[in-house]
């Protein structure tokens, strides 16, 4: 597989690989590598793990950063190398910027896991752009908001944004006006 075709896939191609493929074992091992800040989803499900390939100097694992300043990237590199080293496989991690990571790449199963974990999964980026120019204050009633973010606890759409920026670069802080619980919203990116 060339790097170009691998990078055009929305998520890693483990489902498409026959289990006899030499890279199948690598993808399978990497299934255990989770996002350091969201331990319920794997790097593949997050769309961070882009490709596994034979490079000039051996096996290469290609990952792409989420946010430019995401402090978890170094941890992810170490986790990938360690997961493979544990099975006796030496690999280099290549960080590739293009195409830029998008929250649209988060797989459907990962979205369900995020919700179960208490994080509202991201709306599509197309929706988000439509509301990007709307001045949206926390004090506003939810009916004025252009995008409704359902509460991951009680599924109510009666929620409001507390802050654009939450506990990590990729999240915003919301509050449910029905069950009164605050929650993280994974921002469209």
């Amino acid at each position: 597989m060339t790097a170009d075709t691998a990078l055009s896939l929305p998520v890693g191609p483990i489902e498409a690989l026959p289990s006899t493929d030499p890279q199948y074992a690598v993808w399978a091992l990497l299934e255990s590598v989770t996002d350091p800040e969201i331990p319920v989803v794997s790097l593949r499900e997050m769309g961070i793990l882009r490709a596994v390939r034979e490079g000039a100097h051996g096996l290469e694992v290609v990952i792409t950063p989420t946010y430019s300043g995401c402090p978890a990237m170094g941890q992810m590199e170490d986790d990938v190398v360690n997961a493979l080293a544990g099975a006796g496989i030496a690999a280099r991690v290549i960080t590739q910027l293009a195409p830029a990571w998008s929250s649209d790449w988060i797989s459907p199963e990962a979205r369900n896991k995020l919700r179960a974990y208490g994080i509202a999964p991201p709306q599509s980026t197309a929706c988000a752009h439509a509301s990007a120019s709307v001045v949206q204050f926390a004090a506003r009633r939810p009916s004025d908001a252009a995008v409704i973010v359902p509460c991951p606890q009680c599924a109510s759409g009666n929620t409001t944004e507390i802050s654009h920026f939450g506990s990590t670069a990729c999240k915003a802080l919301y509050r449910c006006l029905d069950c009164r619980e605050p929650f993280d919203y994974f921002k469209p990116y």
Partner: protein
Amino acid sequence: MAVNTDYLLHLADNALILGQRNAEWCGHAPILEEDLAISNISLDLIGQARMLYQHVAVLRKDGRSSEDLLAYFRDVPDFRNYTLLELPHSTALAPTASGERDYAVTVARNYLYSALMVLVWETLQNCKDAQLAAIAAKSLKEAHYHLRYSRDWVVRFGDGTEESHQRIAAAMAFLMPYTQEFWDHSSMEKNAAAEGVGVEPASLRANWEAEVAATLMLATLPAVSSQGFVSQGKHGVHSEHLGYVLAEMQSLARAHPEAVW
């Protein structure tokens, strides 16, 4: 292709210096949510600066450049950031630069810069330098969030209480003259634009002014004149404030060169 690292350094220095200034609020912001927000913006900006410095180091191929050397071992005249980004957060209403930090100044500065950078990154994501285009595509997504955040606060301050209105109006009047530097001619930008690896901000001016005018109106703020002294930070001629920013930012790396942790 001729390598124009001056322009890349200008972009990187802008992001690093504003990132460093914003980080001064970490642990000190008016409320917890703003502490998280401004620290997150800081993190994005420093991340952008790192990608740009790493790109410069790769392009130079001189073995003497690295992101750390570029960030920590250059001095004031080597930095090419806009003067706007190095100014202290002290209130525009205070008589001296050692006055208390004023969030209105922080918000106004982030707004004026983000409004420009959304336009700059939009253009650069299609430039001929594939790595710069990739950095621009990522940074654009972040700049949209920074613009939305700072615009919301400009409007809320302007349309808020008498005091918040007075503070944001003073901050805008104080900072607006520094935006003239965006449009000031520079061969560094002109050459990069001519090679297809940069943009002359003057070509973005009408769109920037329309965005700012619309926001000021929404914020019930008066139109602000940008007339006055044209600062020269992007040419390497800085205010007295940058030296203090660098002293704080660089002291650890200079006291313990090549330290790792």
